[in-house]
């Protein structure tokens, strides 16, 4: 017999292998400071400090303590950390103690010991399954009110709204074999595989290998684990991932694993998400011990037998001196012996008529009652005694800890993720896989229904040879089919975390919820954060008994990833904040920033929206000033973001011809043409200009927004639809910087910068193209206009973008050249009546935007949209067509999205809308508020008539006259000048 040592009020078994009693760690729980040791979990350290009450339950606010020593813990759920680092609903059994750790209980008010909402427990007979559905059905509107109160009373922790200050990493791992679980079966399998030269990863959710074998008191077992670990550590073809839970198995040999990393410093990650690609996998995932359902089986001090064994032997915590063990199988007798060895009083309540190892316990001074069950646990906030029922007799037995074992359930979650369905096995009296081996996986050890330590090791070795260990399966613990005790009148919990009790399942069955999937959803059994790991099999047995059918007939529910909760931060990894999505900056970006431009996000791009004159100038004043300047003098705008696609090859002409509605094969070298691109369903896809640079080379521009989708579409046509055309398509958006020069003075500025090219109206007319040099740098000049003024778009290699911008400003100063932003660029194009994405929203046809002639003139045999663009209905005059709107009241401006009606008032809803406003601006040239809109019947029906643009959300109605969408220079004389 070993004499326990007393440290800081905590009694520790000095044979404990899992804690380092030389290193103390201070931590805080619910504001009180405690001391534990290195290696402790929060649960073991609190138990050592005699703290048994850790939490309140979800619905009834019942007092709860630690029930397990692993990741399946349903009760000891706490809030970890403080402030922005707070992580709700973490399992105290999985939290490694670290210096200064702070944890708090949750779901209680005002305190854990005195929780007002525990009054729910008194009314719990009314709070049965389906209570909310039945009670709060009527009146329907009141649900909005009930919901708030119910949500406040129920539920567990609260997530923080603050930014997560921790770092998390994501990494890909590759191996030939992934071994999940580092217990006896996993270790032996990994070693045998490594000996064959296989590249192996072995992962275990615990920080130390050994699985359940760690919790044994035998020195030989502990030595075996140490030996295997050091052998594995010495091998170069083995990687050991500890504190790493393989939480999901996915297609093609991909496994998701979450590592709780050791944080060495402020920069090291807290969580690591491993995506492991493995050709094969060995599942050595072990088994979970089941509770037995009896009265008050959730009282703090009631725990699973294996967990007590872990606390006593591994963490060295002896949480009580007077211990009752309630079992239906042999697996608890080693624990009984260990406890007797430590000087505890031990009483075993065994449901079976006789139990072979009982004699040894009796010989060592323990008590064993056969044919007996624990009907109820009794005590106030923690266990004080149990009520035992034996052969019709009832007696009370004092105790401070009750350990229970209802048998073991193999952990087959990962196999289920891959499509295997476990079924109940009548001989093993537990669920089991029908096939232990699939093409790429094999299941070994307790996960395969093998219980003996030596057999588990053997099955791991067999797996390395590709053999299954079906022959080693047996009910070697002599488990009896006892799942619940019927002699209790107290609450008997089946699912601890969701507060689902025995009568809830009976009620569900009586109300007709017969399918196990329905019972699960109606009672919420197995739907808490623990996914019912300790509850599911007992629930199936209770349902089977209630329905009077076999366990196989009841079936099982489906396990889905993740096995244990995964923080969102782990999936996000480093892709948070600025790293969430790439930022695209043009080559001129830094100039914009230095010169005070207000930047706007356009997809991933940053674009200058406007350049305020001073701090007080607002957007509206700035864009009006900028566009007035363009119309009277000259301005320049960064258009680098437009999509640029190079199309090259001997069939480039034919290819471009097929892509656009209008002809491009006839386009002369050195000329630009505006093109409209359709989809195969006949609607407009995108527009832009395309230039014939050389005989076999075209350069296409797309809208900024559609650059990626047009490229993908062209690639499809090139590689899949018309592979016979000799052409190659690729994006050159990033290779060229683009600057548009617009306004009456633009040619004068251009003349100043080109090295020695003739840019006169004759040499470079509207829709002309010139390849030349500026300061010796290659420059492509396109005579195109988005604003309606004389304009040029200059492309130079991207690296020269900012130099060109600065050079233009310098040379253009005599002509008052000024930069303008996207806001004035957009306003200029609205005045001109050009369409963009707001108009080309996928519902518009060429007829709708006034390009019907383009289609009528099209005689090409093959082009995208060739069949459906000729639908009869596209010519229906009732279709909404592009028009301009002018506000009759100069002080009233439009709102995008306004619905157009013929009447000023909406008297009755719903009303049929005539159309809607797509783009609006103030036009300085006309000194009017204008808008582009689609209206049924178009200009031919509505020209000069009055309509009303309604925006009911803001109670806004604007009286408007319908006009041509070309508000300025409808003949295009300016841009040709």
């Amino acid at each position, binding site marked *: 017999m070993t004499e326990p040592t007393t440290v800081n009020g905590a009694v520790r078994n000095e044979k404990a292998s899992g804690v380092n009693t030389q290193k103390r760690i201070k931590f805080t729980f619910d504001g009180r400071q405690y001391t534990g040791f290195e290696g402790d979990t929060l649960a073991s350290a609190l138990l050592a400090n005699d703290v048994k009450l850790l939490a309140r339950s979800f619905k009834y606010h019942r007092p709860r303590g630690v029930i397990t020593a692993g990741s399946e813990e349903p009760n000891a759920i706490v809030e970890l950390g403080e402030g922005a680092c707070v992580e709700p609903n973490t399992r105290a059994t999985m939290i490694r103690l670290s210096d200064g750790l702070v944890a708090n209980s949750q779901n209680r008010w005002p305190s854990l010991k005195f929780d007002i909402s525990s009054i729910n427990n008194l009314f719990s007979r009314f709070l049965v399954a389906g209570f909310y559905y039945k009670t709060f059905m009527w009146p329907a509107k009141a649900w909005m009110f009930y919901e708030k109160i119910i949500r406040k009373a129920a539920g567990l922790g609260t997530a923080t709204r603050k930014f997560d200050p921790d770092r998390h990493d994501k990494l890909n791992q590759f191996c030939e074999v992934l071994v999940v679980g580092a217990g006896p079966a996993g270790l032996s399998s990994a070693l045998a595989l490594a000996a064959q030269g296989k590249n192996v990863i072995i992962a275990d959710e615990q920080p130390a290998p050994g699985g359940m074998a760690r919790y044994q008191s035998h020195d030989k077992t502990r030595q075996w684990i140490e030996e295997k670990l050091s052998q594995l550590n010495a091998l170069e073809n083995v990687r050991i991932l500890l504190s790493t839970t393989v939480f999901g198995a996915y297609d*093609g040999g991909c496994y998701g694993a979450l590592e709780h990393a050791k944080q060495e410093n402020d920069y090291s990650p807290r969580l690591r998400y491993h995506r492991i690609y493995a050709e094969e996998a060995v599942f050595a995932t072990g088994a979970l011990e089941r509770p037995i359902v009896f009265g008050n089986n959730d009282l703090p001090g009631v725990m699973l037998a294996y967990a007590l064994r872990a606390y006593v032997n591994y963490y060295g915590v002896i949480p009580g001196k007077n211990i009752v063990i309630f079992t239906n199988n042999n697996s608890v007798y080693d624990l009984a012996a260990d406890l007797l060895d430590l000087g505890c009083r031990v009483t075993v309540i065994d449901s079976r008529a006789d139990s072979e190892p009982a004699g040894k316990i009796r010989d060592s001074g323990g008590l064993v009652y056969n044919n007996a069950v624990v009907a109820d646990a009794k005590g106030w906030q923690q266990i004080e005694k149990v009520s035992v029922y034996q052969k019709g007799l009832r007696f009370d037995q004092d105790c401070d800890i009750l350990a229970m074992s209802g048998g073991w359930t193999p952990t087959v979650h990962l196999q289920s993720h891959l499509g295997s369905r476990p079924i109940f096995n009548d001989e093993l009296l537990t669920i089991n896989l029908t096939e232990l081996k699939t093409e790429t996986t094999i299941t070994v050890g307790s996960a395969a229904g093998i219980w003996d330590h030596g057999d588990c090791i053997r099955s791991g070795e067999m797996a390395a040879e590709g053999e299954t260990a079906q022959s080693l399966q047996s009910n070697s613990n002599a488990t009896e089919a006892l799942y619940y005790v019927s002699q209790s009148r107290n609450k008997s919990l089946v699912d601890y975390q969701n507060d689902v009790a025995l009568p809830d399942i009976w009620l569900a069955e009586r109300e007709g919820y017969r399918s196990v999937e329905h019972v699960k959803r109606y009672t919420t059994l197995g739907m808490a954060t623990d996914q019912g790991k300790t509850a599911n099999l007992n629930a199936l047995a209770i349902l089977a008994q209630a329905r009077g059918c076999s366990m196989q007939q009841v079936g099982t529910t489906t396990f889905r990833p993740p096995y244990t909760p995964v923080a969102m931060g782990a999936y996000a990894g480093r892709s948070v904040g600025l790293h969430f999505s790439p930022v695209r900056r043009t080559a001129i970006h830094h100039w914009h920033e230095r010169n005070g431009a207000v930047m706007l996000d356009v997809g991933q791009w940053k674009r200058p929206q406007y350049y305020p004159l001073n701090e007080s100038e607002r957007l509206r004043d700035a864009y009006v000033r900028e566009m007035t300047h363009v119309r009277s003098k000259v301005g320049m705008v960064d258009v680098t973001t437009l999509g640029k696609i190079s199309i090259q090859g001997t069939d480039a002409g034919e290819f471009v011809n097929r892509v656009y509605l209008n002809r491009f094969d006839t386009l002369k070298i050195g000329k630009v043409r505006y093109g409209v691109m359709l989809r195969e369903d006949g609607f407009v896809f995108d527009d832009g200009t395309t230039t014939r640079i050389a005989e076999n080379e075209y350069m296409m521009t797309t809208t900024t927004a559609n650059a990626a989708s047009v490229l993908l579409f062209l690639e499809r046509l090139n590689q899949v639809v018309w592979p016979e055309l000799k052409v190659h398509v690729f994006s050159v958006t990033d290779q060229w910087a683009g600057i548009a020069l617009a306004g009456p003075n633009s040619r004068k500025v251009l003349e100043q910068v080109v090295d020695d090219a003739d840019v006169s109206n004759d040499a470079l007319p509207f829709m002309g193209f010139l390849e030349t040099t500026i300061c010796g740098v290659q420059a492509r000049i396109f005579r195109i206009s988005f604003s309606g003024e004389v304009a040029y778009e200059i492309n130079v290699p991207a690296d020269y973008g900012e130099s060109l911008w600065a050079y233009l400003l310098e040379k253009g100063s005599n002509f008052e050249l000024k930069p303008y932003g996207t806001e004035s660029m957009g306003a200029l194009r609205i005045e001109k009546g050009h369409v963009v994405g707001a108009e080309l929203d996928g519902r518009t046809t060429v007829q709708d935007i006034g390009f019907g002639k383009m289609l009528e003139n099209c005689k090409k045999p093959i082009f995208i949209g060739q069949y459906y663009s000729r639908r009869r209905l596209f010519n229906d005059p009732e279709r909404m067509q592009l028009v301009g709107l002018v506000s009759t009241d100069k002080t009233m401006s439009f709102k995008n999205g306004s619905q157009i009606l013929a009447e000023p008032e909406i008297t009755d809803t719903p009303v049929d809308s005539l159309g809607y406003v797509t783009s609006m601006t103030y036009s300085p040239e006309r000194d009017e508020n204008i808008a582009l809109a689609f209206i049924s019947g178009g200009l031919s029906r509505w020209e000069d008539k009055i309509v009303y643009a309604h925006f009911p959300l803001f109670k806004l109605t604007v009286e408007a006259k319908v006009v041509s969408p070309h508000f300025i220079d409808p003949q295009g004389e300016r841009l040709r000048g």
Partner: protein
Amino acid sequence: MRIRCPYCGPRDHSEFSYEGDATIKRPQNEDAKAWHDYVYLRANPRGRHKELWSHVAGCRAWVVVERNTLTHEIYESYLPGDMKDD
């Protein structure tokens, strides 16, 4: 899941973009049913299926992937030009 790109070898599926049924053929005539089927109708087969995936975050090749829609098993992948009609 990983997809084998004929140019780049096996790559993570997140580098690819799913682009639908690989077996549809653009009609060579003005047949209404053929065009309707090409533009609007897609089979939703259970089992082996030929799909188009574009290696958008890689070499930008379009790849035909033969995949089982039930088990997600990938049998083979090749360039569209190498596809044989069933």
